[in-house]
């Protein structure tokens, strides 16, 4: 079970009698469903996260009205955008105008195919994974130019042209930085690159050599420029171009532009994590087979002393849960609204903790008779969920940096932008490549 596509072919083996093509179609549709759903969820959450970070950096709170902590805000926004009128200018090139946002979306969604989430969680582990990523990244240029051209608006066209100039230039340092990684890992497959970084934090390419350390920054800066984020967002510079390439777009087509942009944030962070931060490798833990660790853990939990301590903790937790539940019924008696009630405001964390630990207590009680089954669960956790959580956590941390930059730095001028690329990042990229070559040859 190397990747999801092969796994799904195995799962749908009973369809083999229908022939290869229908089976492949079903597998492809399933993969597309997974990718698009994850992509939609991520871009939606990023709109929320962006607004939250914007609030924090301005000493505000950010959206906190819709759902818990405002988490469902993006769904409300999406519903609003879908319900709005989709205006297409009379003089616009209709078919291109309609198609452009989806091309942009396509480029981003295709990138999700090679992004790994765990040792086995990847849609398709291509042997040219990184090259494929660079290629899908270029869809953005085409989409933006099409949007700018078809709008029949000079600001939109200017934005499109600027984006072309910018993205094509910044692809060079981007590719150079990734080349450093490929040089070190000796493979272009995403999983291969991650496996090459096994064995502790000092084996991650960010820390393994000074040249790849520099390459990380070259990659990160140029990737941010490639997805048109602030401080490199001159294609949609509000102060000069009103809104740039998306000036004539409204309703969900406009939303699709932003979905693609926010999806791209996750893509570049995930690629940076894969190439430089060890992917799903757990820091300070040099373990090649995580599943074995899980099997060991099953035995560890079976020891009497550990069990005693955990039982005591579970008792304390049950007490907390009892207190929280009492507050809950106190609210119910007064017929207060559930979500505005004292219980949710004061005891929500308590309740979650309490229920968690009470569940733990239940598991403890059932642990000894169910040990054989549970060790499988531990194994599954360490094999699948833990790497996923590690990868996702790292990617979210980097995405936070992207958002953080947006709310810190002012926008660059066009000439400054080109200067950063051609005078600084590209020479730096070449220096990294040459230096890393020597490093790989002579020092390791």
């Amino acid at each position, binding site marked *: 079970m190397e990747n999801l596509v092969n796994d799904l072919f195995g799962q749908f083996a009973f369809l083999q009698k229908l022939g290869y093509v229908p089976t492949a179609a079903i597998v492809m549709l399933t993969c597309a469903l997974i990718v698009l759903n994850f992509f939609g969820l991520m871009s939606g959450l990023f709109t929320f996260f962006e607004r939250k970070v914007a609030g924090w950096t301005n000493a505000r709170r950010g959206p906190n009205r819709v759902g818990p902590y405002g988490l469902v805000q993006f769904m409300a926004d999406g519903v609003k955008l879908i319900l709005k009128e989709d205006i297409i200018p009379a003089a616009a090139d209709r078919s291109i105008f309609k198609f452009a946002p989806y091309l942009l979306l396509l480029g981003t969604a295709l990138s999700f195919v090679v992004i790994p989430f765990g040792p086995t969680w990847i849609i398709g582990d291509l042997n040219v994974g990184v090259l494929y990523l660079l290629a899908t990244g270029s869809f953005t240029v085409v989409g933006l130019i099409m949007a700018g051209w078809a709008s029949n608006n000079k600001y939109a066209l200017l934005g499109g042209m600027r984006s072309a100039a910018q993205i094509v230039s910044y692809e060079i340092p981007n590719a150079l930085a990734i080349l450093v990684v490929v040089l070190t890992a000796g493979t272009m497959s995403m999983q291969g690159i991650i496996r090459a970084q096994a064995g502790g934090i000092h084996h991650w390419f960010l820390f393994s050599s000074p040249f790849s350390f520099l390459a990380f920054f070259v990659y990160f800066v140029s990737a941010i420029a490639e997805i048109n984020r602030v401080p490199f967002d001159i294609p949609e510079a509000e102060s000069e171009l009103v809104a740039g390439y998306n000036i004539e777009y409204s309703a969900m087509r406009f939303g699709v532009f932003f979905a693609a942009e926010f999806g791209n944030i996750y893509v570049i962070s995930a690629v940076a994590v894969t190439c430089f931060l060890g992917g799903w490798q757990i820091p300070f833990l040099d373990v090649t087979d995580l599943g074995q660790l899980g099997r060991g853990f099953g035995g560890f939990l079976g020891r009497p002393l550990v069990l005693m301590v955990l039982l005591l903790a579970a008792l304390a937790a049950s007490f907390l849960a009892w207190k929280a539940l009492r507050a809950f019924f106190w609210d119910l008696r007064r017929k207060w609204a559930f979500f505005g009630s004292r219980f949710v*405001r004061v005891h929500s964390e308590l309740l979650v903790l309490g229920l968690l630990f009470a569940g733990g207590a239940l598991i403890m009680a059932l642990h000894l008779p169910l040990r054989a089954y549970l060790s499988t669960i531990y194994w599954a956790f360490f094999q699948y969920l833990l790497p996923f959580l590690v990868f996702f956590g790292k990617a979210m941390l980097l995405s936070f940096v992207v958002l*953080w930059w947006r709310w*810190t730095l002012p926008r660059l001028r066009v000439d400054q932008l080109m200067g950063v690329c051609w005078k600084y990042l590209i020479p730096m990229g070449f220096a990294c490549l040459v230096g890393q070559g020597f490093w790989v040859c002579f020092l390791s």
Partner: protein
Amino acid sequence: MKVSEGIKEYFGNIYESVTTISMGMWITFKTAFFERKVTLQYPSHDILEGKTKEASLPSKKNLKPPFEPLLGASQQNYKGPLNAQLPERYRGLLGYDELKCISCLLCAQNCPIDVIRVRGVKIEGRKGKAPTTFRIDYSKCMFCGLCVEVCPTDAVFFTRQFEGATFEYRTLIREFISPALHLERLQLAEVAKKKAIEKKKKKHESEEKEH
């Protein structure tokens, strides 16, 4: 420019950009995570009455979910009720004192958009006319203050209330005199009318007698 100077400038630029960017990022980081939030969560954590709204109105209708606990920031920024902080001559919603009104219709006549409707009747024991209807259509009112300026008895005045938003259009038409009071006034007016007629008759009769 010498080559060495150029090299110095080149690496100086890199150094400067790295240091300035990290300085800026540290500032935003501090603001984001270590500074007090300045937001006053107005509708749910109200400052109008100097206490939170859900404390004062524990009903399902008025409750909004305050998922983030009030971390003391709003209390820190609290400078007393908001009405009290408003300027002296703040033009909030129009207020009306039914006891002072003499139904002179000056406000209605001066209103440039005919927002005010006043009707009054003569009743006993009251100077001028007693109002039976006083209606302001807030959906049209532009708060110019001409009615307030012209009122001889200060019956129409500006309050410091500004929460006039409603969900329905018709609720913006505000009746200041309740239907019960309206009917009572009409009855009193009839009584007063009868008394006046009787008075007139008596006067007439007495005059006739004198003749």
